[in-house]
């Protein structure tokens, strides 16, 4: 006999509201229906009422974890419409903040995953490290969540003492290399809880068009930083970790390896930080009529902004955002089919979902 178990929208296993209706036969999940929209704020429509300064502040609030990524993508799109390319120093600062956000996101996710595994010590360790990442972001921007770093044509704040930031990053990297990485890559507790569950095959990943670590953990070698470089990524050396198995362990492994790659990118960017201006363009920004699209590799995968402006317009005539979780969410259905009911919280968490992003 099959029966339906509702999970969410408010549930101890979910960090944000969404709902999974699980159709089960005994303890086995046969199918699932996903319900989102509990965080819907109508931000795309709201953006049409905001000027070019206000819209940056608005879209920074799409997500609380990758807030700077959203403004970076939006500013890159608007820079195409205003002919205000960022100067080299601003490009490097954008890379540093973006990679710190990736560290923040991945470490936060590691903590949540550890909690769902019942691995409380790891949860506490991850959140302690997350605080240190936020300390670095605070040292750079003065803020711990919405950093207000990006503006059209560059960045608002400089990294005045790169050596001090470098010392903080190196200490963090050492600590992560001692704790999170070995535990997540070799611990039998993590492996026994995650291996072989929530499998998303490469064929299914390609068919669903998933992005970011979810795609890379299913053997899809896709990363916008490398495939369509933006900011200063073309001047930096880094690897794109790809794992073929497609299970929760693979997603764990990909993110663990990406943490080390992000540290490598930040170290290089701080060492090569060029001198110069923080932004181009004068105070009066002029838009041309047209549409521009920009993509960035956010911690959870590719985010795309499409911005349309009419000449002389004070606000965007259309702003469309496709966030990574929006592309990855439908894959949860494929991942939980055939899974044990008890594994579903961990499986759904393994895509590192962000409903704030999804719902906008």
């Amino acid at each position, binding site marked *: 006999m099959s029966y339906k178990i509702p999970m969410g929208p408010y549930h101890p296993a979910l960090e944000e509201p969404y709902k999974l209706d699980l159709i089960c036969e005994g303890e086995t999940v046969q199918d699932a229906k996903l319900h989102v*929209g509990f965080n*819907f704020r109508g931000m795309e*429509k709201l953006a049409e009422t905001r000027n070019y300064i206000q819209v940056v502040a608005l879209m920074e609030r799409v997500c609380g974890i990758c807030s700077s990524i959203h403004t970076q993508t939006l500013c890159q799109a608007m820079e195409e419409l205003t002919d205000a390319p960022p100067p080299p120093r601003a490009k490097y600062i954008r890379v540093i903040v973006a990679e710190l956000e990736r560290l923040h996101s991945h470490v936060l996710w590691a903590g949540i995953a550890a909690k769902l595994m019942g691995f409380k010590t790891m949860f506490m360790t991850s959140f302690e490290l997350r605080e240190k990442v936020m300390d670095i972001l605070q040292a750079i921007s003065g803020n711990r969540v919405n950093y207000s770093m990006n503006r059209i044509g560059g960045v608002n704040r400089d990294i005045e003492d790169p050596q001090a930031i470098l010392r903080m990053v190196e200490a963090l990297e050492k600590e992560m290399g001692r704790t999170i990485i070995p535990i997540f890559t070799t611990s039998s507790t993590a492996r026994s809880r995650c291996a072989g569950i929530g499998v998303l095959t490469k064929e299914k990943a390609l068919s669903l068009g998933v992005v970011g670590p979810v795609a890379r953990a299913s053997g899809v070698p896709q990363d916008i930083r*490398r495939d369509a470089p933006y900011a200063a990524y073309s001047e930096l050396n880094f690897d794109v970790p790809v794992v073929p198995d497609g299970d929760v362990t693979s997603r764990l492994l990909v993110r663990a390896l990406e943490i080390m790659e992000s540290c490598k990118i930040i170290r290089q960017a701080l060492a090569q930080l060029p001198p110069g201006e923080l932004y181009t363009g004068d105070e009066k920004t002029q838009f041309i009529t047209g*549409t521009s699209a920009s*993509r960035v590799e956010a911690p959870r995968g590719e985010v795309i902004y499409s911005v349309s402006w009419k000449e002389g317009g004070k606000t965007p005539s*259309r702003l*469309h955002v*496709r966030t990574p979780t929006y592309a990855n969410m*439908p894959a949860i259905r494929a991942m939980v089919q055939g899974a044990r009911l008890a594994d579903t919280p961990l499986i759904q968490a393994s895509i590192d979902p962000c409903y704030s992003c999804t719902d906008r």
Partner: protein
Amino acid sequence: MKVAMSGIDSISEKLGISDPWVEKRGVHWLETSANTVSIRELAQVMGDFHARLVTITAYQLPGEEGTLLEYYWDLGGKLMGFPFKLAANSIDSIYDICEAADWIEREIHEEYVVNFVGREYEPLLLREGDTPGVNLREETI
């Protein structure tokens, strides 16, 4: 700026379009696609080339002009755009050819009341129980 690229050139060749790709602000456009190729043919060819559907952006055009859909595909890091101006706010669904289109079509149906022919809609994606069109269309039906 007109560009020549071997990877995406073979796509236009397969579609039977001789016009060159036009690169405009980060997107390679094949502007003539809407007049010569149906969306289902396009989706099929994109699938053959293992291109990834990134998103579909909808625009409400002024007055009675209807809706414009811009389909974005990625092939090896190149973003390709295909505009389709809709007659009677209706276009064929590509969900059965390209699974990645499912949620995107549902959202556009919900935002702009665009009818994607050949598919059924589950309840609203973002505002379950509400009326289609209230999100982004200026006048709701």
